[in-house]
């Protein structure tokens, strides 16, 4: 039986702060982006989100990305991307 939780992928400054590219966070219940970030701050330190760069989005390989609000509910089983600066042309 597969575990329930969130697949988190980090890029740019998020990755530098986390020290890993990817992390599986076990969790059975719904949570919000805000709560998720707080959990990650507790794990990686406050610098995890202090750079104020980029965006957090829900990712589905078929539907593509969708930007998330901080207070949006996340269902276990989701893949969440923590993206660095949105590159400009």
């Amino acid at each position, binding site marked *: 039986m597969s575990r329930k939780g969130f697949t988190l*992928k980090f*890029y*740019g*400054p998020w990755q530098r702060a986390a020290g890993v590219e990817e992390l599986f966070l076990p969790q059975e219940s719904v949570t919000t982006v805000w709560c998720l970030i707080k959990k990650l701050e507790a794990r990686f330190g406050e610098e995890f989100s202090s750079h104020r*760069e*980029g*965006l957090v*989005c829900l*990712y589905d*390989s078929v539907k*593509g*990305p*969708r*930007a998330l609000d901080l207070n949006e509910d996340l269902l276990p089983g989701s893949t969440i*991307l923590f*993206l*660095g*600066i*949105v*590159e*400009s*042309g």
Partner: protein
Amino acid sequence: MNGYQGRVAMIELGERRYRDIFLDEGLVRKYIGGSGLGTYFLLKFCTPGTKPLSPENPLIFTTGPFQGTGIPTSGRHQVVTRSPLTGIFLESDAGGSFGFHLKRAGYDGLIITGRSERPVYLKVLDGQIGFEDGQDLWGLDTMETDARLKSVFGERIGVSCIGPAGEKQIPLAGIFHDGTDARAAGRGGAGAVMGSKNLKAIVASGSSGTEVHDRKALTVLISEKNAILKEKGAGMTLYGTVGGMGMAEELGDLPIRNWKQGSWKEEVREITGQRMAETILTGNYGCVACPVRCGRVVNIGGGNIGGPEYETMGMLGSNCLVNDLDAIARANEQCNRLGIDTISTGSVIAFAMECYEHGILTGEQAGMPLHWGSGEAVNYLVTKIGNGEGIGGLLGRGTRAAAKELGRGAERFAIHSKGLEFPAHDPRCFKSLAAGYATSVRGACHLNGYSYAWERSATFPEFGYPEKQDRTTDKGKGIMNARFQNLSSLVDSLKICKFILLMGVNLSDISRWLKCVTGWEYSIKELEETGERIYNMKRIFNAGLGLDRSDDTLPQRILAEPRGSGGSANTLPDLGMQLDEYYSYRGWSNEGIPLEEKLEGSGLREFMNWIPS
């Protein structure tokens, strides 16, 4: 020959004839395609005496070996010629689908010379080239032209065309593709060269696939990389390049009030990609083989049109102090329809606004008051420039020429290098852009080297840049520029999008792709050397026109007037130091001329006669 159709067409418009030039393996291994092959043919078929708008000036379209293979972002092509705006070397890269269709039509490129007596368009269909009367298309805008040709030939074609600006040989005119999903070879006036030949459009279509050395292995590599690019490019998919507006303002990169103002914190929020997504965005579009799809679709006045990207938003927006999303989107649409470069157009409008502020240009001369922040004035001038009417006749010649004609100190408001207007990134913010813009072979260009991306956020360990580079320092930036110019020349020759270098594609990937497509082994070192060879060729062209170190410079506003506030306040680049380092690394003289032994070592002996003795 895997990866290539093995031929380019040499087309003479005046005599309405063409012949095929067959490519041998030695040639394409040396110059790859796109930028490299285009520059090779420019040096072959142009002389230092060839005038940009003369029939003899070759207008060259080239694709790359990855085109038609499904490699991510490989749906691009290059246009190479001598520029009527700057008078020097010009290459312009475009996405969309035209390159894909041209290669499917059985050609790796087209070399077009001569001048048709009457307006004409070319059909490149399944290995045959035809000359069609273009009189009925003359006067149509780029989107009307695309639609008209698709109504004749069907939807499965590529169209490359000019708008009214190109027909009138306005030096800001570009060459446009894909109609409403506009993709342009915008910079430097290639559209005017096309117009000078009375060539309105090229239609391409065919069924010739690209042969690949190892399809099975390539399919696996493409699948793996597409998955990564979709994730890493998610920000671009959501917000397009214009998602970077806020950060550009914060860093002190964004052009504001003709590069004079330091910050614009509150105002910029109205014109970010995020704001666009909340308001007028209705969809996105992409080039052939691109999993990211950064192109914007917006709804203005009840209809869907292409939305502005970062450079356009910076130049027609913040640089003119306009933060009206609707007005900028309309101006962008009008530029695309008339067929003019949004970057140079935005720059020359900001120049005109500053001239107006200082009384050098009056409202009577301009036809209306040119107040900072006026979206109405921006749209008015876009129309005038694109149609070559009134004040647009002067401004359409670019900031350098307009400043010279206006006089009275207008030169200090003309922000260009070698006659090409600055794009929307500031060398006072990213120091590497100083040598980058100054030495760029087509004039001020952020993509000639793309070095600033590695001072902003990206790393490239395989290329010797494992950490983000310090954007505030000058030391090392001359070398960095030379190396990233080489890399960009390689990428422009393969014809893939530079954005993927920020999203996890490195030189090892490129080497593997090249092996799978062509069967050829290239080490990382050989790839960089190939890029260097191609870059040297472009410099040879300019050296042949008499350019040297004295031309590798920047406007006084950038060299001597720091921003007063914002993320790059009170700092200036040291161009002289960067140039010394740059020339030394390149193996050029301190006057910026490629040295004989360098050219010999790069296999460019055949072009040494271009270098003045």
